[in-house]
Every structure is written in structure tokens, then in C-alpha cells.
């Protein structure tokens, strides 16, 4: 855009200069025409004018035509220049646009790739964390379930034992005569004699 403005201003200046030149030429032609008119006051020259039978209006018209022609030529010339400049600027603009587009596309592509890589990394990290969390949660859950199971089993076991012992106590209380246990007791004592001996042997008077 800057190039176009600069080019347009330059053309405008050229145009103005051209118009000024045309105007100066026109003034010079006019002055020369007036001077030549004054000279016709001289008798010899006056006769020549008369001989030539030049019409001042025609001269003015011719001058105008000449001016118009020069103007048209200038216009054509600068139009061509303007078109050429415009084409060149358009090409430059197009080139700039293409370059910019490529650059933007490239930059955008790079940013997009960076974003994709970062997103992928974040996704992978998140997945890994989720996997770790999931594993630890599973492990913790299993441990908790196992602990709870053990606790429940222990409670049930203790209660069953208590129930069993209470039942046996109530059922057998006083019914098993000590004398009937004599053989059992002495058999057990004999089996554990070594352990008992350690504590009470060689102690005393």
C-alpha cells in the first residue's frame, strides 16, 4: 500500500509539472502570438500578414489543439507509465502478499505443530498420571478391602470362638470330672516336662 501511495504521489507531481510546462508553453505561444500581432503594425510585415491572411481565431484554435494534443500525449504517456507502475506495484504487492502468506502459513504451521506437540505431551503426561493414580488407587483400594476383610474375618472368628467357648462352657461346665481328665492331664504334663523342668529344677532349699 505504501508503494502505491508513493507511486501515485509521484505521478501526480509529474502531472502537475507537465501541466505547468504546458501552461508555460501556452503562455509563451500566446506572448509570441501577441508580439507577432504587434509587428504586423509595421507596414512591411503587415502586408505579409495580410498576404498570409491568417485568422487569429484559427491560430488560437490551433494552439489549443496543439496544447490538447500535447496534453493527450502526456496523458497517454503517463497513463502508460501509471499502468506500468500500477502493474509493477500489483506484482510487488502480490509477491509481498504471497511471501507474507507463506510466512504466516509457515509460522502458523509451526505454531500449530508446537501446539500439537505440547498438547500431545500434556495428553501423554495426563494419561501417565491417570494411569499412576489409577494404579495407586487400585492398590490402595485392594489394601483397604484386604484389611477390612481381615478385620471382619478376625471379628467373626473371635465371635465364633467366643460363642463356641461359651457354648462349650455352658454345655460342659462341671460335667467333665477331673478324675476323668487325669490321664489327659498327666500325658500333657509329661509332654511338657522339659519346659516345666527348666523353671523349677534346682531352685529351692
Amino acid at each position, binding site marked *: 500500500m505504501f508503494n502505491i501511495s508513493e507511486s501515485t504521489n509521484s505521478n501526480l507531481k509529474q502531472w502537475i509539472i507537465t501541466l505547468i510546462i504546458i501552461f508555460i508553453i501556452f503562455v509563451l505561444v500566446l506572448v509570441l502570438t501577441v508580439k507577432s500581432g504587434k509587428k504586423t503594425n509595421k507596414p512591411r510585415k503587415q502586408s505579409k500578414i495580410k498576404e498570409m491572411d491568417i485568422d487569429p481565431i484559427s491560430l488560437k484554435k490551433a494552439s489549443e489543439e496543439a496544447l490538447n494534443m500535447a496534453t493527450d500525449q502526456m496523458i497517454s504517456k503517463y497513463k502508460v507509465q501509471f499502468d506500468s507502475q500500477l502493474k509493477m506495484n500489483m506484482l510487488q504487492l502480490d509477491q509481498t502478499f504471497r511471501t507474507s502468506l507463506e510466512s504466516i502459513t509457515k509460522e502458523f504451521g509451526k505454531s500449530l505443530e508446537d501446539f500439537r506437540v505440547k498438547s500431545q505431551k500434556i495428553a501423554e503426561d495426563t494419561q501417565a498420571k491417570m494411569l499412576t493414580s489409577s494404579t495407586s488407587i487400585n492398590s490402595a483400594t485392594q489394601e483397604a478391602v484386604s484389611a477390612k476383610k481381615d478385620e471382619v*474375618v478376625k471379628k*467373626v*472368628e473371635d465371635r*465364633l*470362638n467366643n460363642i*463356641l*467357648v461359651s457354648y*462349650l*462352657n455352658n454345655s*460342659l*461346665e*462341671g460335667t*467333665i*470330672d*477331673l*478324675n476323668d*481328665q*487325669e490321664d*489327659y*492331664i*498327666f500325658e*500333657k*504334663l509329661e509332654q*511338657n*516336662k522339659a*519346659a*516345666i*523342668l527348666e*523353671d*523349677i*529344677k*534346682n*531352685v*529351692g*532349699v
Partner: protein
Amino acid sequence: MSEYKLKGLPKQISNLAQIYQLISFIDSAISEKRSVEAANKAGIKAKITKIELPEMMQYFFEDSIEWNHLSELKKQLEAIISSSPTVTLTLSGIPSNKFKTKMVSWLRTINPFVLVEIIVDESIIGGVILKTDKKRIDLSISSVLLGNKDSIKGILNNV
């Protein structure tokens, strides 16, 4: 004057309470003898009455008894109190004398001076729990039943 030396406690004497009873009897007998001797010295004619041995004493002295033996016995009984081991037996019911004597005899084969205390606890259902100063040996029926926890746990784990 012969020396009196205990080779072991009689099987009928099992616990501390009996030992203290014996010492108490010996003290009163010695005291009576000293009183008679003091009276004799003072010119009062006094005679030591025949000592009626309690049943427990008969386990120590079979035929005759000498006064110095009583003093020696007392010293040895005091030594037993201070140094002999005590075994506490927990049984599910009150034992008969025969059973008790058999238990004491069995323990005295290990240490002839061991003292035996008997406790009754019906919750053990049967068997015996033997406790010394250092350890506790549970030979009761209830411990046998409670000892099968693993089998109960195994069944519960498979539920």
C-alpha cells in the same frame, strides 16, 4: 542329738498356707517348752505335756520327735518359703485329695521342694494351665479349641 535334714517336702504339704501353719505350730510348741523350762528353773514343778502332733507334722516325723528337730525344721521351712519355686495349677474343677497328691508328687519328682497352688477356673473346660514365675504353659481344652483359629479363618476366607 541327731541332725534333722529335710530331703523334700511331703506330698501332702503342697502350698504356702500349710507351711505357715507348720511354722506356727512349731513356734507354739517351742514357746510352751521354754515356759516349762523357765518354770522349772524357778523351782516350780512343771511338766511338758505330750505334744499332740497335728496330722501335717506326722508327715515329717514318723516315730519320735526331738525338740531340736523342730527348730531345724522351722529354719528349713522358712528357707523353703523364701527360695522354693511355686507352681500354680489352674484346673476346671476342685481336685480330689488323691488327684491333688498325685499332681504334687509328679511335680516333686522335678523339684522335691516345689510349692503348688491350685486355682479352679471352669472356663478352661478341662486340662490344666501350669504357671511358674517365668512361664505359662496352657494345656487346657479351651486353648486347644481356640488354637484352631486358622481352620476357622480358612473356612471364612473361602466364603
